[in-house]
């Protein structure tokens, strides 16, 4: 009898806290959102399941959680805490990405830069709320709407906030179809939303092959902190465009990115243990994260309107919203909002240009913040 009582004390029921229950509910909610609403299922299902696993209370002495040295989960989490998974995901993204629309309309690259204002204003907002410079830098990058970049920078600048930042980044990325449309409609007139853009020109194979090498050199020489992420992104793209490494490109964009996504999503979810995650700081990070997405979207749209003041071939300002990276969801949102006004207006391919330049922009922003803040004392 005594053994049974002792065993019951070690069960999850006995040591379950309110915080654990809340986090398990959040995990279930993520899974439900992914399955029912189809919000980023590839990310929310692993994160949701990870959150459930990470919040099952364990007995002292049993090495089980991501924070316990030597546990299986801690080895999986190693790729997150050391920033190994994000560059591998970037390799896969590079092997998937077609830069053709960007190469055919280079001025759209600037929209990706404009949307990065979300990163830097959120950084200032975090400082106003009392976060340290390093923490604020890691929080600010949520505005880049790029999960792997957020994880990478958080692992370098503010490891204790990694869980909250990763969850905020991925949650808001999943909520892009909810967050962006009201901002886009608010900042544009119907006439602007109806603008049809010229079809992109055909890009030669040679341009596509030269671009990743030279673009990497430009970015890396300006912001060396971004070499890991951008190196892998452009390497993946070179594998795709060179046409002689099709097998490697295929592996990078299918099995490899899938495996890394599973490991990253699950271990990030498992790191959201209630005692580490349910804090005032996490709430502030979530608030700042939502704000950063709004600012980034507004920045892109307003800059597109500004560009239209000088352009003869007007651009549809909606595509500015795709300057937040969130590939390809924000581009899809642009297409959706555009088609609500004019069902025959196809903005997706145009929106992919600021979308991929947003990926480059957020990686550069991360590199800059890492380089500058790594020396900061606080």
């Amino acid at each position: 009898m005594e053994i049974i009582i002792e065993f019951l004390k070690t069960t999850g029921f006995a040591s379950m806290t309110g915080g654990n229950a809340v986090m398990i509910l959040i995990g279930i909610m993520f899974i439900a959102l992914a399955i029912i609403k189809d919000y980023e299922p590839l990310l929310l299902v692993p994160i949701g399941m990870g959150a459930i696993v990470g919040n099952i209370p364990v007995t002292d002495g049993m090495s089980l959680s991501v924070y316990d040295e030597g546990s299986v989960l801690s080895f999986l989490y190693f790729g997150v805490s050391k920033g190994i998974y994000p560059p591998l995901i970037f390799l896969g993204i590079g092997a998937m990405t077609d830069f053709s629309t960007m190469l055919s309309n280079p001025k759209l690259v600037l929209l990706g830069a404009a949307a990065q204002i979300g990163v830097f204003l959120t950084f200032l907002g975090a400082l106003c709320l009392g976060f340290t410079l390093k923490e604020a830098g890691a929080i600010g990058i949520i505005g880049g709407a790029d999960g792997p970049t957020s994880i990478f920078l958080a692992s370098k600048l503010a490891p204790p906030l990694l869980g909250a930042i990763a969850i905020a980044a991925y949650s808001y990325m999943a909520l892009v179809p909810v967050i962006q449309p009201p901002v886009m409609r608010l900042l544009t007139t119907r006439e602007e939303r109806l603008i049809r853009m010229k079809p992109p020109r055909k890009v030669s194979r040679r341009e596509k092959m030269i671009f990743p090498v030279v673009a990497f050199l430009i970015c890396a020489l300006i912001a060396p902190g971004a070499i890991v992420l951008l190196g892998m992104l452009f390497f993946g793209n070179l594998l795709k465009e060179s046409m002689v490494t099709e097998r490697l490109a295929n592996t990078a964009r299918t099995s490899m990115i899938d495996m890394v996504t599973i490991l990253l999503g699950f271990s990030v979810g498992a790191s959201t243990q209630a005692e580490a995650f349910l804090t005032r700081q996490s709430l502030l990070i979530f608030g700042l994260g939502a704000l950063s997405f709004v600012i980034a979207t507004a920045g892109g749209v307003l800059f597109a309107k500004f560009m239209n003041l000088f352009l003869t071939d007007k651009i549809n300002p909606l595509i500015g919203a795709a300057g937040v990276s969130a590939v390809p969801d924000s581009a899809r949102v642009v297409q959706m909002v555009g088609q609500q006004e004019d069902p025959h207006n196809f903005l997706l391919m145009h929106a992919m240009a600021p979308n991929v330049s947003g990926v480059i922009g957020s990686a550069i922003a991360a590199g800059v913040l890492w380089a500058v803040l790594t020396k900061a004392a606080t």
Partner: protein
Amino acid sequence: MNDRARSDILPAARWIYRGSLATVVRAHLLSHTTLVAADRLIHDHLYTHLSIVITPMTASIIMNAFWDDTIRENLSEGIQIAIAGMVIVASALALISLFIATLPHLLAVIGKFWPDVEASHSRHARTENLVSKNEAVLAAIGYVLHCEVQKRASSERSVD
């Protein structure tokens, strides 16, 4: 009120008078002496024209109430980092944009000295097509032969 203070106050006061609110950041940039003088000036001359005014002094009070020295130090450093960061990101992407814009022209020049890679790839693709066409023909011949052999075999069986 000294000249320096006046020169600081007047543009600030004019700015507020045009209907804008004095921002916290602007107030932060003014010295304490100037803040007191500006506050008095705004109160004496402009208060009747504006229903709500966040004067530099009140802004300063708000800042002191909510932000300690560390936050203010971080914020001033953060503003510099944010501006520099935005400039760097914009410059990098502007350079990429310029490079992309010049790339077709560069390729046109290079193309004169260096044969187009696309041509060799298309040759490679054509060879692949040729091979696949040959394979298709071989498969068709094989199928016809197989059908013939089957037909003969069945006719032989029926004779037996």
